[in-house]
């Protein structure tokens, strides 16, 4: 197996990792905002539920959560485990886990906005909804870009956990080739690919940060 065929196989694995990455971000960011609103709600029961949900998701390994999501339907309802379901389970597991982290980041962002902003909006007669949408949310987004960047970069590397559900993401592919060829080089090439992937992510997030730098 030549170096280039190894690279081609790894790139295919990278495509699978990218799929998890994109779908997770697409759903976990909005879900995180909803969880955050629940966590900050006036209704104490909802707040309690969200706090519990977040503590479980942050307090247990993501790998275990993936296994639970994947196998729970089989053990509880006796459903068959299809390949499609495995992929769905991976996405659900990642989305829910990352939503919990994003929710706490968003909460910190909202709480760091001076009370005067909300008060000024209130006196001007904005509704609660308008105040959140027009005044609080845009300022929160600016404040959370750096911590969100951290999570997004972690997510790139976490995609390798999908191996527990037998999904051929890049690192799984790298390990298979390494084992077959009795050569560690594929692992390092995979490492290089993760590094480049994250370089692109960091660059993109920096652009967003700069785009929001027009005010302070």
């Amino acid at each position, binding site marked *: 197996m030549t170096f280039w065929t190894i690279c081609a196989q790894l790139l295919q694995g990278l495509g699978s990792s990218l799929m998890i990455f994109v779908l997770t971000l697409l759903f976990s960011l909005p879900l995180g905002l909803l969880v955050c609103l629940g966590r900050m709600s006036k209704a104490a029961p909802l707040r309690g539920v969200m706090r519990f949900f977040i503590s479980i998701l942050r307090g247990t390994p993501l790998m275990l959560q993936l296994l639970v999501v994947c196998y729970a339907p089989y053990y509880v309802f006796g459903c068959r485990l299809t390949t499609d379901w495995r992929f769905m389970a991976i996405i659900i597991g990642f989305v829910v886990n990352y939503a919990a982290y994003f929710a706490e980041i968003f909460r910190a962002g909202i709480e760091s906005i*001076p009370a005067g902003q909300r008060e000024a909006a209130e*006196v*001007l007669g*904005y509704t609660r909804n308008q105040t959140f949408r027009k005044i609080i949310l845009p300022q929160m987004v600016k404040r959370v870009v750096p911590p969100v960047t951290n999570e997004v970069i972690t997510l790139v590397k976490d995609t390798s956990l999908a191996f527990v559900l037998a999904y051929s993401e890049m690192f799984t592919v790298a390990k298979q080739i390494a084992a077959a060829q009795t050569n560690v080089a594929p692992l390092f090439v995979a490492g290089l690919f993760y590094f480049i992937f994250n370089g692109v992510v960091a660059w993109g997030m920096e652009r967003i940060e700069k785009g929001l730098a027009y005010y302070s």
Partner: protein
Amino acid sequence: MILEMNNIKKSFGELDVLKDISLYVDKGEVVSIIGPSGSGKSTLLRCATFLETIDSGEIKYMDRAAAWTDESGAAAYLPPAELRKVKSCYGLVFQQFNLFPHYSVMKNLVDAPVSVQRRDRGEAAEEAKALLIKMGLADKADAYPCQLSGGQQQRVAIARALAMNPEILFFDEPTSALDPELTGEVLKVIRQLADENMTMVIVTHEMAFARAVSDRVIFMDGGVIVEQGDPESVLGDPAEDRTKQFLRNYQR
């Protein structure tokens, strides 16, 4: 009567901040409220603007009750939608300006008239431009608050409040966050509004300004109104010992 506050009581836990305070403001009147820190001046303004809820008493705007004490003795307020209508009667200028940092000066002035009062955007923009000219900030329409000095930010905040066409304007220590040089430009604008017969309630530590601009001065201490009257008598020849003591300390 633009504003009528009757028997307002407010406490934070054990601390009684407002002890049965009544305050009336007539159309065109400029009322200054002075007093030591912790005397309840700011809390009174925050109760009048519904940023704090009163424990009991009555608040009326334009002769219409917005808050009152119900049979059980607790304070009751108009429902939120009705209360928002009352809110368009008044504007509040904060000590810390509280401009929206992500909006340009123009958007700070136009957004609330358009999205709260549902006014025409073009018309609101025209009015905002006129207000900026009046504030001496015609060239700052496209600037962001962070690019302005404190005095300029406070003048934008005054313009933002005026853009809602309020009947009465409240100022909560509008110059306390400014250095003396910038204080002057803000006071000049407020004085100009007084000359145009804008109804205003000003919580301030600027005694000379209060004396020059007010129709009535109120001295508060310990959650009560100790003394009130025309500025010359309250500030020049106070009747109460507590007022004399405060003014003496102030002159030092």
